[in-house]
């Protein structure tokens, strides 16, 4: 590169890095899309709502009660968010540990989804805690008998690991070779740690409920609930990556210019894994119900039937769809199965924390509109952050130096 060209490159760093190479006016105009409009509206209501919650307290903004202490912010934002962010460790493990190099192309988006998912889960948690500034007490007190102690420590450690993993494309974007080179070298260690920490806290989120057998419906409560939560996290990881990559590859096709990814082949491969794991999970849940002597509850009353809806419609069905789609090389069918599986994981976490919880209470919990709106805002911010990062950093596309090294 001539020095003139290099000078030009330096001078417009902000324009190139932040404004996608457009002039400020041009860039702002490019932001005027319907999607952005809706997202802005959601955030303009949601962010003040969040601040209002800190000002006015939980009673004024949520429908939480003495018998329903955990609502949407814990049940959905934290628990479901963490489950759906499991793609980071599943694909990371697939590529770095199991050696399935062909999934390399979707490893970084999965890690990014994981990183943003955990960040948003933590924000949701902070919104829910009565005195979030006392979170530091986790490190000051010996609360080791508590499952929540382990969850908190693990989530902190894992978010650190994720941020180190995400730091690689971040520093590549900034061209800071001295920072990303050493991080790339320890990627294997980071991946082992990420699988380890994820296994620990994904399962521990389920263990939280072991202490309350009388309050969680017998079809969902089990002393083995930690195994169920871990396996559904793996399912969530696989399925979210299928869904996220099919959306990303369509919307961010510009990032894939210069980079050939056979998304269909990868989707079908993931579909095979999803089929088998969902199949095993279906039978595992049955074993759990029998172990708990709870088969009599199946089909009885609303919750007995709702359990069947969850198991047959959102576990068995996606398993069979995955199987059929993978066998017949139908990536579109696999994607549909992926969506159903993701909905199934959301349903499971929502059921355990809210629907099947405090089930004998006639006064049932329904979230307030403010709780729902704040949740929606957090999801929207996560999506916007994902898009901002993917359009600028080498997440979907190869980093320049790696492409040249090949």
């Amino acid at each position, binding site marked *: 590169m001539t020095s003139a060209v290099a000078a030009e490159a330096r001078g417009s760093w902000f324009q190139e890095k932040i404004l996608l190479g457009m002039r400020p006016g041009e860039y702002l105009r490019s932001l005027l899309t319907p999607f952005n409009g809706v997202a802005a509206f959601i955030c303009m209501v949601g962010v003040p709502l969040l601040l209002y919650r800190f*000002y006015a*307290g*939980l*009673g004024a903004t949520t429908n*939480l*009660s*003495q*018998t329903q*202490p*955990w609502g949407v912010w814990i049940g959905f934002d934290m628990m479901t968010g963490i489950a759906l962010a499991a793609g980071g460790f599943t694909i990371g493990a697939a590529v*770095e*540990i*199991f*050696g399935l*190099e062909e999934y390399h192309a979707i490893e970084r988006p999965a890690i990014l989804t994981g990183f943003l998912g955990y960040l948003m889960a933590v924000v949701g948690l902070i919104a*829910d*805690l*009565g*005195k*979030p*500034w*006392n*979170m530091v*007490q*986790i490190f*000051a*007190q*010996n*609360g080791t*008998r*508590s*499952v*929540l*102690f*382990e*969850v*908190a420590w*693990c989530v902190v450690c894992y978010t650190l690991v994720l941020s180190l993993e995400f730091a690689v494309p971040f520093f590549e974007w900034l061209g800071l070779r001295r920072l990303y080179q050493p991080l790339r*070298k320890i990627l*294997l260690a980071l991946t*082992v740690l990420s*699988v*380890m920490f994820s296994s*620990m806290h994904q*399962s*521990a989120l389920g*263990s*939280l*409920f*072991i*202490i*309350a*057998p*009388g*309050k969680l419906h017998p079809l969902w409560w089990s*002393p083995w*609930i*930690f195994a169920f939560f871990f396996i559904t996290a793996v399912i969530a990881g696989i399925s979210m990556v299928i869904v996220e990559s099919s959306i990303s590859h369509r919307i961010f096709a510009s990032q894939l210019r210069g980079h050939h990814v056979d998304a269909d082949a990868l989707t079908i491969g993931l579909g095979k894994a999803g089929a088998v794991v969902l199949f095993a999970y279906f039978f595992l849940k049955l074993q759990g119900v029998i172990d708990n002597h709870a088969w009599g509850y199946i089909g009885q009353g609303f919750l007995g039937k709702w359990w069947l809806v969850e198991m047959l419609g959102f576990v068995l069905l996606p398993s069979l769809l995955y199987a059929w789609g993978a066998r017949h090389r139908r990536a579109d069918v696999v994607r549909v199965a992926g969506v159903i599986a993701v909905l199934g994981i959301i349903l499971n976490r929502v059921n355990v924390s809210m629907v099947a919880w405090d089930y004998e209470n006639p006064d049932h919990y329904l979230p307030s509109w403010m709780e729902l709106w704040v949740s929606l805002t957090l999801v929207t911010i996560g999506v916007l952050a994902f898009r901002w990062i993917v359009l600028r950093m080498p997440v979907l596309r190869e980093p320049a130096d790696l492409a040249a*090294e*090949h």
Partner: protein
Amino acid sequence: MKMRRRTFLKLAGAAGAAAAGTQARAAFGDAAGAGESSVLVDTTLCVGCRACEAACAEANRLPEPPAGDRVLDQVRKTSPTSLTVVNRFEAPDGGPRFAKRQCMHCVEPACASACPVRALDKLPNGPVTYHPERCMGCRYCLVACPFEIPKYEYAKAVPTVKKCTFCAARQAQGLAPACTSVCPSGALTFGKRGALLEEAKRRVYGSPGKYVHHVYGEHEAGGTNWLYISDVDFSRLDLKVTVADASYPQLVKGALGVPPFVMTLWPPLLMGIYAFSHRKREVASREGGKQGGGEASHD
């Protein structure tokens, strides 16, 4: 030192009680939490005066409970401003029965084991106390308690958890809890768990037709320090009878063992898989011929 008659009698009584206590300890010494502070609630003796509520509110600087008997028309639960409530129920013979509700101060408290920052903590002498300066408001204690006792101050911007703390400060000074020290009818007896269990059984078996043959709190949740005896079914007194007869924190023991297990087992397991798959790739690329040379080994 000169000893006065009253003091002598007190000492003699204490010695006798101690002897009886030793005997009680021998019989119930292996009972869980035998040496912990405990209260025996005899609902046949409670007249519903609610002096205990007033004393509790005064000792904890809470608003005065509503006066008069109209309040007894509704079955109340404890709340952030009333750490104990007395409810009225109807017995089969048509007469009223009263039952005091408050924290059960379990021998193995689910709430304290659940609290990740030890804001709820068990004192060795029995009370389950609360440290608001540690509490981060996660409300896991509300999730855990099988008696649904902890109450959260949802209405406040800086909320804390509210429940009876067994007047731990008073107990540290050698005093009885506020509620037991004002009870006029003797429905509340403060003592050590082992001795009170013996007393409870003595009353139950001493008047066979009168009491229900069960000491509520002997085994519930693995044993609680607030023990109840009654002449009507406990379920009629708004006491949860579906509480398991085992310690709730013990339920979690197996699951608590999983994370350290994973920390130990996963690294060698994962590295073994890595080494195995890495070796397979090396072998494959060598067999792949000239083309294979391009495969960089990413570490």
